[in-house]
């Protein structure tokens, strides 16, 4: 990958993080950690992978992107604003009275495919979209970004069994595998490891990557499907709240936002004034 492109990804990921810091700070809302862990992947997805059109969000042949971890929605709002799906000023209204953007992702916002907020809802709907695309001989792809908590939900397992049964190779799951849940570390709640072999046994083609390595993210997502006839699963190892040193890998960052002093310090760490 050329350095210029990598720089482009890094800059966009930084802007996403800066937006999220300001949005959650202004609204005194939470889930900063969940936004930061997937920021690099969102930068790559919306720059190089997803075939979407900001000027025509309803374009029938667009790739579908479902954020199943709807609590991280501010990061998707940020990247959509950066890509011109709606005016940047909307970000200033996040979580506020009569605001344009809610705490969890909403399909009332241009560019958002589906509203979530309760975990385990994304993958079944993505699977239905994948079935429809195959029936209609359409070649767009369906992406579903999920959290660790999403992987606890029974409905996710219902859907992943069904997707493998029907050989839906037009669907890709990306798990933002930061291994920190709302009440604790995954190891202390429901340990999913060995996760990749488990998924392979369930009939998915799995790749494990570093979700903060933009080059690896781009390379991996450029090789879909990983195996013809199998749905693809990217287990993207990430760090909760990556980019704010004192909040990284902390349970507290799941619900947290930053105060005035921390905002300045966090923006400085990101190199944003």
């Amino acid at each position: 990958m050329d350095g210029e492109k990598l720089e482009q990804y890094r800059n966009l990921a930084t802007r996403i993080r800066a937006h999220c810091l300001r949005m959650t700070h202004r609204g005194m809302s939470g889930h900063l950690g969940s936004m930061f862990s997937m920021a690099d992947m969102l930068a790559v997805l919306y720059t190089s992978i997803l075939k979407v059109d900001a000027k025509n969000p309803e374009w029938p042949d667009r790739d579908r992107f479902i954020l199943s971890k709807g609590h991280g929605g501010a990061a998707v709002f940020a990247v959509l604003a950066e890509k011109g799906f709606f005016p940047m000023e909307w970000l200033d209204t996040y979580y506020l009275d009569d605001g344009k953007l809610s705490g969890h992702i909403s399909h009332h916002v241009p560019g958002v495919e589906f509203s979530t907020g309760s975990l385990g809802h994304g993958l079944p709907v993505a699977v239905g979209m994948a079935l429809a695309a195959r029936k209609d001989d359409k070649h767009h792809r369906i992406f579903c970004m999920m959290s660790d908590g999403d992987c606890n939900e029974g409905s996710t397992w219902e859907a992943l069994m069904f997707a493998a049964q029907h050989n839906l190779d037009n669907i890709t799951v990306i798990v933002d595998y930061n291994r920190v849940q709302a009440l604790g570390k995954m190891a202390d709640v429901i340990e999913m490891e060995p996760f990749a072999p488990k998924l392979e046994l369930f009939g998915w083609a799995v790749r494990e990557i570093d979700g903060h390595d933009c080059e690896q993210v781009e390379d991996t997502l450029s090789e879909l499907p990983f195996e013809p006839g199998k749905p693809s699963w990217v287990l993207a190892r990430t760090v909760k709240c990556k980019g704010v040193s004192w909040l990284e890998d902390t349970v507290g960052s799941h619900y947290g936002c930053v105060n005035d002093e921390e905002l300045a310090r966090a923006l400085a760490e990101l190199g944003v004034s």
Partner: protein
Amino acid sequence: MRSAFNEELLEIARKDERIFMVLADIGYGEIEPFAEAFPDRFYNCGVAEQNMTGVACGLAMEGKVSITYSIANFPTLRCLEQIRNDVCYHNQNVKIVIIGGGLAYGALGVSHHSTEDISIMRALPDMVVCCPADIKEARAATHAMIAHEGPFYYRCGYKQEPDVHAGVIDFQLGKAIQARDGADVTLIGTGTVTFRALQAAELLAAEGISARVVSMHTVKPIDREAIIAAAEETGGIVTVEEHTVCGGLGSAVAEVVAEAGLGIPFRMIGIPDTYVHIVGTHEWLLDYYGFSPEGIAATVREAL
């Protein structure tokens, strides 16, 4: 009634390629013709109702019309959040069909009694709630359901239920159908138990009480005009539903009557606020809970 529903759906699906059936391993002996005719529009999700509903919603988001179909509470309460957040909030064309509302599965026990479904489904914005009273209504309701854009709950009987209506019916969503005219009181029923209201009206006629009988097949949106006309023209209303008295047809009718300021004699015949753990056939349980023609007639007499 379930056979009539499946026949109509099959006919509609022959002309309408948008129709998909998405099941959760229920429907033996009824759904096979659809599965054989349209294998690429038929999906059995296994015993997984949450996924069934999510898949149905995903298909609908791509322009399909999805039918989810199972018995009693399986396609409603088991996956209620998928119905609320996915189907209704996104206002998608998913049609939820249950076979055997109320106490239809009698002796199978509480897990198979769908006795809170009407109130729960009618609480969801954008959901239509429809409980056909007889096979004529069931056939017409199937067409109306597909023609309607948006979420739809269809409560289907599972036997060869008797006709409530003589002759041809004019079925329109949200428009009650009068099965019998009367001047002294109106029995408003929904679903297959409406037939028992009709039988009760005959008993009452023999003793000089003229009871109107109305099939309120659409509980939501409810036919306000028919309710107000019943109150003004007959002076009393008794609702009959095979469902808890908490929040169902009786409550919906009471809301209209109260808001219209009509102080009239009013009673709700339904299942009391309890789980039906006593064991018995469908018919026996209905009699036990006051749905026998004599029981309904007694409630009417008491109301008047």
